[in-house]
Protein backbone atom coordinates (compact mmCIF):
# COMPACT_ATOMS: atom_id res chain seq x y z
CA UNK A 1 0.00 0.00 0.00
CA UNK A 2 1.19 3.51 -0.82
CA UNK A 3 0.93 6.76 1.08
CA UNK A 4 -1.98 8.86 -0.19
CA UNK A 5 0.15 12.00 0.00
CA UNK A 6 3.55 11.00 -1.41
CA UNK A 7 3.30 7.50 -2.90
CA UNK A 8 5.99 6.05 -0.60
CA UNK A 9 5.28 2.72 1.16
CA UNK A 10 2.60 3.25 3.80
CA UNK A 11 2.98 2.30 7.48
CA UNK A 12 -0.72 2.35 8.26
CA UNK A 13 -3.88 1.65 6.32
CA UNK A 14 -6.96 3.28 7.82
CA UNK A 15 -9.83 1.40 6.25
CA UNK A 16 -12.36 3.61 8.05
CA UNK A 17 -10.93 6.66 6.24
CA UNK A 18 -10.13 4.74 3.05
CA UNK A 19 -6.51 5.81 2.84
CA UNK A 20 -2.99 4.88 3.89
CA UNK A 21 -0.09 7.06 5.01
CA UNK A 22 3.69 6.78 5.30
CA UNK A 23 5.32 7.46 8.67
CA UNK A 24 6.16 11.08 7.91
CA UNK A 25 2.69 12.00 6.70
CA UNK A 26 0.98 9.99 9.45
CA UNK A 27 2.92 12.02 12.05
CA UNK A 28 1.63 15.17 10.36
CA UNK A 29 -1.93 13.92 9.96
CA UNK A 30 -2.57 12.86 13.59
CA UNK A 31 -1.91 16.29 15.19
CA UNK A 32 -4.04 17.91 12.46
CA UNK A 33 -6.96 15.65 13.37
CA UNK A 34 -6.55 16.40 17.08
CA UNK A 35 -6.41 20.14 16.39
CA UNK A 36 -9.65 19.81 14.40
CA UNK A 37 -11.37 18.16 17.39
CA UNK A 38 -10.07 20.80 19.81
CA UNK A 39 -11.56 23.52 17.61
CA UNK A 40 -14.73 21.68 16.62
CA UNK A 41 -15.76 20.96 20.22
CA UNK A 42 -14.36 24.26 21.60
CA UNK A 43 -12.09 22.45 24.05
CA UNK A 44 -9.54 25.18 24.84
CA UNK A 45 -7.84 28.15 23.22
CA UNK A 46 -4.12 28.50 22.37
CA UNK A 47 -3.58 30.92 25.28
CA UNK A 48 -5.19 28.63 27.87
CA UNK A 49 -3.19 26.30 30.14
CA UNK A 50 -4.15 22.62 30.00
CA UNK A 51 -3.46 19.87 32.55
CA UNK A 52 -3.12 16.37 31.06
CA UNK A 53 -3.86 13.27 33.12
CA UNK A 54 -0.90 11.05 32.24
CA UNK A 55 -0.95 7.30 32.89
CA UNK A 56 2.26 6.33 31.08
CA UNK A 57 0.16 4.65 28.36
CA UNK A 58 0.18 5.37 24.64
CA UNK A 59 -2.93 7.57 24.62
CA UNK A 60 -2.03 10.06 27.34
CA UNK A 61 1.65 10.29 26.35
CA UNK A 62 0.62 10.57 22.69
CA UNK A 63 -1.85 13.32 23.60
CA UNK A 64 0.79 15.21 25.57
CA UNK A 65 3.25 14.92 22.67
CA UNK A 66 0.63 16.18 20.19
CA UNK A 67 -0.47 19.14 22.33
CA UNK A 68 3.15 20.24 22.83
CA UNK A 69 3.76 19.96 19.08
CA UNK A 70 0.66 22.03 18.41
CA UNK A 71 2.11 24.70 20.72
CA UNK A 72 -0.31 24.36 23.62
CA UNK A 73 0.76 25.04 27.21
CA UNK A 74 0.31 21.47 28.37
CA UNK A 75 1.47 20.29 31.78
CA UNK A 76 1.15 16.67 32.99
CA UNK A 77 -0.04 15.05 36.18
CA UNK A 78 0.72 11.44 37.08
CA UNK A 79 -1.10 9.67 39.93
CA UNK A 80 0.81 6.78 41.53
CA UNK A 81 -2.03 4.44 42.56
CA UNK A 82 0.15 1.84 44.28
CA UNK A 83 -0.69 -1.05 41.93
CA UNK A 84 2.05 -3.53 42.87
CA UNK A 85 1.86 -6.34 40.27
CA UNK A 86 5.25 -6.30 38.57
CA UNK A 87 5.67 -2.73 39.82
CA UNK A 88 2.92 -1.59 37.44
CA UNK A 89 2.60 1.86 39.02
CA UNK A 90 6.38 2.28 39.39
CA UNK A 91 6.98 1.34 35.76
CA UNK A 92 4.23 3.60 34.42
CA UNK A 93 5.49 6.51 36.55
CA UNK A 94 8.96 6.02 35.06
CA UNK A 95 7.54 6.12 31.52
CA UNK A 96 5.69 9.36 32.30
CA UNK A 97 8.78 10.93 33.89
CA UNK A 98 11.05 9.89 31.02
CA UNK A 99 8.67 11.44 28.52
CA UNK A 100 8.47 14.69 30.51
CA UNK A 101 12.28 14.97 30.68
CA UNK A 102 12.68 14.30 26.94
CA UNK A 103 9.93 16.75 26.05
CA UNK A 104 11.16 19.37 28.52
CA UNK A 105 7.67 19.52 30.02
CA UNK A 106 6.50 19.78 33.63
CA UNK A 107 5.05 16.70 35.33
CA UNK A 108 3.36 16.81 38.71
CA UNK A 109 3.38 13.47 40.58
CA UNK A 110 0.80 12.61 43.23
CA UNK A 111 1.45 9.46 45.26
CA UNK A 112 -1.85 8.23 46.69
CA UNK A 113 -0.28 6.37 49.61
CA UNK A 114 2.07 9.22 50.56
CA UNK A 115 -0.79 11.71 50.32
CA UNK A 116 -3.69 9.73 51.83
CA UNK A 117 -2.07 6.80 53.69
CA UNK A 118 -3.29 3.91 51.54
CA UNK A 119 -2.81 2.56 48.04
CA UNK A 120 -5.80 1.87 45.79
CA UNK A 121 -5.57 -1.95 46.26
CA UNK A 122 -5.42 -1.49 50.06
CA UNK A 123 -8.35 0.87 50.02
CA UNK A 124 -10.39 -1.42 47.73
CA UNK A 125 -9.67 -4.49 49.89
CA UNK A 126 -11.03 -2.73 52.97
CA UNK A 127 -14.20 -1.81 51.13
CA UNK A 128 -15.52 -5.22 50.19
CA UNK A 129 -18.18 -5.25 47.53
CA UNK A 130 -16.65 -2.31 45.69
CA UNK A 131 -14.41 -2.99 42.73
CA UNK A 132 -10.84 -1.72 42.67
CA UNK A 133 -11.67 0.06 39.40
CA UNK A 134 -14.63 1.89 40.94
CA UNK A 135 -12.53 3.05 43.87
CA UNK A 136 -9.70 4.02 41.56
CA UNK A 137 -12.05 6.10 39.41
CA UNK A 138 -13.35 8.06 42.40
CA UNK A 139 -9.83 8.78 43.68
CA UNK A 140 -8.46 9.79 40.28
CA UNK A 141 -11.40 12.09 39.48
CA UNK A 142 -11.04 13.84 42.85
CA UNK A 143 -7.25 14.34 42.63
CA UNK A 144 -7.36 15.46 38.99
CA UNK A 145 -10.17 17.93 39.54
CA UNK A 146 -8.44 19.34 42.62
CA UNK A 147 -5.11 19.72 40.79
CA UNK A 148 -6.74 21.37 37.78
CA UNK A 149 -8.63 23.87 39.97
CA UNK A 150 -5.72 24.59 42.35
CA UNK A 151 -3.30 25.04 39.45
CA UNK A 152 -5.64 27.46 37.67
CA UNK A 153 -5.80 25.33 34.52
CA UNK A 154 -8.49 26.15 31.97
CA UNK A 155 -9.12 22.47 31.27
CA UNK A 156 -8.27 18.96 32.36
CA UNK A 157 -7.49 16.74 29.37
CA UNK A 158 -7.60 12.95 29.31
CA UNK A 159 -6.39 10.54 26.62
CA UNK A 160 -9.73 8.78 26.03
CA UNK A 161 -9.78 7.64 22.40
CA UNK A 162 -12.69 6.72 20.13
CA UNK A 163 -12.56 3.04 21.14
CA UNK A 164 -12.75 3.99 24.83
CA UNK A 165 -15.77 6.19 24.16
CA UNK A 166 -17.44 3.53 22.03
CA UNK A 167 -17.02 0.92 24.79
CA UNK A 168 -18.54 3.26 27.39
CA UNK A 169 -21.33 4.29 25.05
CA UNK A 170 -22.14 0.65 24.36
CA UNK A 171 -22.22 -0.11 28.08
CA UNK A 172 -24.46 2.88 28.78
CA UNK A 173 -26.74 1.89 25.92
CA UNK A 174 -27.02 -1.72 27.05
CA UNK A 175 -28.12 -0.43 30.47
CA UNK A 176 -30.03 2.55 29.07
CA UNK A 177 -28.23 4.69 31.64
CA UNK A 178 -29.80 7.95 30.52
CA UNK A 179 -27.90 10.01 33.10
CA UNK A 180 -24.55 8.76 31.82
CA UNK A 181 -25.66 9.06 28.21
CA UNK A 182 -26.52 12.68 28.87
CA UNK A 183 -23.06 13.42 30.26
CA UNK A 184 -20.82 11.41 27.90
CA UNK A 185 -19.28 14.14 25.80
CA UNK A 186 -15.99 15.37 24.30
CA UNK A 187 -16.25 18.41 26.60
CA UNK A 188 -17.82 18.69 30.04
CA UNK A 189 -18.11 22.34 30.96
CA UNK A 190 -17.16 23.56 34.43
CA UNK A 191 -20.68 23.63 35.87
CA UNK A 192 -19.42 24.73 39.32
CA UNK A 193 -16.59 27.09 40.36
CA UNK A 194 -14.68 24.16 41.88
CA UNK A 195 -15.24 21.80 38.96
CA UNK A 196 -12.71 21.84 36.16
CA UNK A 197 -13.69 21.74 32.48
CA UNK A 198 -12.96 18.22 31.20
CA UNK A 199 -11.88 17.62 27.62
CA UNK A 200 -11.02 14.57 25.49
CA UNK A 201 -9.03 15.73 22.47
CA UNK A 202 -8.52 12.15 21.13
CA UNK A 203 -12.22 11.44 20.98
CA UNK A 204 -12.16 10.96 17.19
CA UNK A 205 -8.90 9.00 17.07
CA UNK A 206 -9.06 5.22 16.76
CA UNK A 207 -7.08 3.35 19.41
CA UNK A 208 -5.25 1.69 16.52
CA UNK A 209 -4.14 5.11 15.26
CA UNK A 210 -2.88 6.11 18.70
CA UNK A 211 -0.90 2.88 19.11
CA UNK A 212 0.59 3.43 15.64
CA UNK A 213 1.36 7.07 16.50
CA UNK A 214 3.30 6.06 19.63
CA UNK A 215 5.23 3.42 17.65
CA UNK A 216 6.12 5.65 14.72
CA UNK A 217 6.95 8.59 16.95
CA UNK A 218 9.10 6.38 19.20
CA UNK A 219 7.18 7.12 22.41
CA UNK A 220 8.14 4.63 25.11
CA UNK A 221 4.86 3.74 26.81
CA UNK A 222 3.66 1.06 29.22
CA UNK A 223 2.48 -1.78 27.03
CA UNK A 224 0.77 -3.88 29.69
CA UNK A 225 -2.80 -3.31 30.75
CA UNK A 226 -3.46 -2.46 34.39
CA UNK A 227 -3.61 -5.92 36.09
CA UNK A 228 -7.01 -5.03 37.58
CA UNK A 229 -8.50 -4.51 34.11
CA UNK A 230 -8.09 -8.18 33.13
CA UNK A 231 -11.47 -9.55 32.22
CA UNK A 232 -13.05 -6.08 32.36
CA UNK A 233 -16.27 -5.79 30.37
CA UNK A 234 -14.93 -2.68 28.60
CA UNK A 235 -12.15 -4.84 27.06
CA UNK A 236 -14.73 -7.38 25.95
CA UNK A 237 -16.79 -4.63 24.30
CA UNK A 238 -13.66 -3.43 22.50
CA UNK A 239 -13.17 -6.94 21.10
CA UNK A 240 -16.79 -6.98 19.91
CA UNK A 241 -16.40 -3.64 18.19
CA UNK A 242 -13.15 -4.77 16.54
CA UNK A 243 -15.15 -7.59 14.93
CA UNK A 244 -17.79 -5.14 13.81
CA UNK A 245 -15.14 -2.78 12.47
CA UNK A 246 -13.38 -5.56 10.54
CA UNK A 247 -16.65 -6.47 8.81
CA UNK A 248 -17.77 -2.88 8.37
CA UNK A 249 -14.96 -0.29 8.42
CA UNK A 250 -16.04 2.94 10.11
CA UNK A 251 -18.62 1.24 12.36
CA UNK A 252 -17.07 2.58 15.59
CA UNK A 253 -16.91 6.12 14.31
CA UNK A 254 -20.46 5.89 13.01
CA UNK A 255 -21.83 4.63 16.34
CA UNK A 256 -20.17 7.37 18.39
CA UNK A 257 -20.57 10.36 16.10
CA UNK A 258 -24.22 9.57 15.33
CA UNK A 259 -24.84 9.40 19.07
CA UNK A 260 -23.32 12.86 19.60
CA UNK A 261 -25.36 14.26 16.74
CA UNK A 262 -28.62 12.69 17.89
CA UNK A 263 -28.17 14.13 21.37
CA UNK A 264 -27.21 17.55 20.08
CA UNK A 265 -30.37 17.63 17.99
CA UNK A 266 -32.45 16.69 21.04
CA UNK A 267 -33.45 13.33 19.55
CA UNK A 268 -32.34 11.41 22.66
CA UNK A 269 -33.15 13.30 25.82
CA UNK A 270 -34.29 16.77 26.78
CA UNK A 271 -31.22 19.00 27.14
CA UNK A 272 -31.63 19.52 30.87
CA UNK A 273 -32.50 15.91 31.81
CA UNK A 274 -30.89 14.36 34.86
CA UNK A 275 -29.27 17.53 36.11
CA UNK A 276 -28.78 17.11 39.84
CA UNK A 277 -28.36 19.97 42.32
CA UNK A 278 -24.80 20.26 43.53
CA UNK A 279 -23.61 21.28 46.95
CA UNK A 280 -20.12 21.27 48.44
CA UNK A 281 -18.46 18.53 50.48
CA UNK A 282 -18.15 19.63 54.11
CA UNK A 283 -14.58 18.29 54.31
CA UNK A 284 -12.79 18.91 51.00
CA UNK A 285 -15.09 21.54 49.52
CA UNK A 286 -15.37 19.85 46.13
CA UNK A 287 -18.80 19.81 44.47
CA UNK A 288 -20.99 16.83 45.28
CA UNK A 289 -24.59 15.72 44.94
CA UNK A 290 -24.32 13.97 48.35
CA UNK A 291 -25.80 15.81 51.34
CA UNK A 292 -22.63 16.02 53.49
CA UNK A 293 -19.36 14.27 52.59
CA UNK A 294 -18.50 13.56 48.95
CA UNK A 295 -17.88 9.99 47.82
CA UNK A 296 -14.10 10.54 47.86
CA UNK A 297 -14.01 11.69 51.50
CA UNK A 298 -16.32 8.86 52.56
CA UNK A 299 -13.87 6.35 51.02
CA UNK A 300 -11.21 7.02 53.66
CA UNK A 301 -13.53 6.76 56.67
CA UNK A 302 -13.46 3.26 58.12
Amino acid at each position, binding site marked *: *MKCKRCGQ*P*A*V*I*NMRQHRF*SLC*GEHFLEWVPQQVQRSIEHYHMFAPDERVLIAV*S*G*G*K*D*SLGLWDILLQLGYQAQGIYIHLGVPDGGYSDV*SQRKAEQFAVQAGATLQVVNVRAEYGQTIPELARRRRGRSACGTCGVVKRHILNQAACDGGFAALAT*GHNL*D*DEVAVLFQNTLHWSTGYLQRQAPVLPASHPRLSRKVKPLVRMY*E*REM*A*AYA*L*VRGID*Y*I*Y*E*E*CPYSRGATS*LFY*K*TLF*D*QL*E*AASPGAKQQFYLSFLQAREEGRLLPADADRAEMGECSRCGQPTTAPDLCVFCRLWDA
Partner: protein
Amino acid sequence: MKIVYRDQEWEFKGNITIRDAIKKMGLNPEAVLAVRDGKLLTDDVIVRPDDTVKLIAVVSGG
Protein backbone atom coordinates in the same frame (compact mmCIF):
# COMPACT_ATOMS: atom_id res chain seq x y z
CA MET B 1 7.95 -15.81 7.79
CA LYS B 2 7.92 -15.97 11.54
CA ILE B 3 5.26 -14.05 13.48
CA VAL B 4 5.72 -13.28 17.15
CA TYR B 5 2.77 -12.28 19.30
CA ARG B 6 3.15 -12.01 23.08
CA ASP B 7 4.90 -15.28 24.05
CA GLN B 8 3.76 -17.21 20.96
CA GLU B 9 5.64 -17.82 17.73
CA TRP B 10 4.10 -18.87 14.43
CA GLU B 11 5.79 -19.99 11.22
CA PHE B 12 4.18 -19.42 7.79
CA LYS B 13 5.40 -20.84 4.51
CA GLY B 14 4.82 -19.49 1.00
CA ASN B 15 3.47 -16.16 -0.20
CA ILE B 16 1.01 -15.03 2.39
CA THR B 17 0.11 -11.50 3.41
CA ILE B 18 0.50 -10.43 7.03
CA ARG B 19 -3.26 -9.88 7.18
CA ASP B 20 -4.01 -13.46 6.12
CA ALA B 21 -1.42 -14.77 8.60
CA ILE B 22 -3.03 -12.75 11.40
CA LYS B 23 -6.43 -14.24 10.52
CA LYS B 24 -4.96 -17.76 10.46
CA MET B 25 -3.68 -17.14 13.98
CA GLY B 26 -7.27 -16.51 15.03
CA LEU B 27 -6.64 -12.81 15.66
CA ASN B 28 -8.53 -9.81 14.39
CA PRO B 29 -6.40 -7.61 12.09
CA GLU B 30 -8.09 -4.57 13.69
CA ALA B 31 -6.66 -5.48 17.08
CA VAL B 32 -2.96 -5.67 16.19
CA LEU B 33 -0.23 -3.73 14.41
CA ALA B 34 2.62 -5.42 12.51
CA VAL B 35 6.23 -4.36 13.05
CA ARG B 36 9.37 -5.55 11.21
CA ASP B 37 12.81 -4.39 12.37
CA GLY B 38 11.13 -1.79 14.57
CA LYS B 39 9.17 -0.32 11.64
CA LEU B 40 5.41 -0.40 11.23
CA LEU B 41 4.04 -2.21 8.15
CA THR B 42 0.64 -2.30 6.48
CA ASP B 43 -0.83 -5.79 6.59
CA ASP B 44 -1.13 -6.28 2.82
CA VAL B 45 2.65 -6.79 2.73
CA ILE B 46 4.15 -10.19 1.90
CA VAL B 47 7.47 -10.33 3.73
CA ARG B 48 10.58 -12.38 2.90
CA PRO B 49 10.62 -16.02 4.12
CA ASP B 50 13.38 -15.29 6.67
CA ASP B 51 11.70 -12.16 8.07
CA THR B 52 10.28 -11.94 11.57
CA VAL B 53 7.18 -9.83 12.13
CA LYS B 54 6.18 -8.78 15.63
CA LEU B 55 2.53 -8.08 16.39
CA ILE B 56 1.65 -5.34 18.86
CA ALA B 57 -1.75 -5.38 20.55
CA VAL B 58 -3.58 -2.13 19.89
CA VAL B 59 -5.29 -2.08 23.30
CA SER B 60 -2.95 -1.30 26.15
CA GLY B 61 -2.22 0.89 29.12
CA GLY B 62 -4.22 3.65 30.70
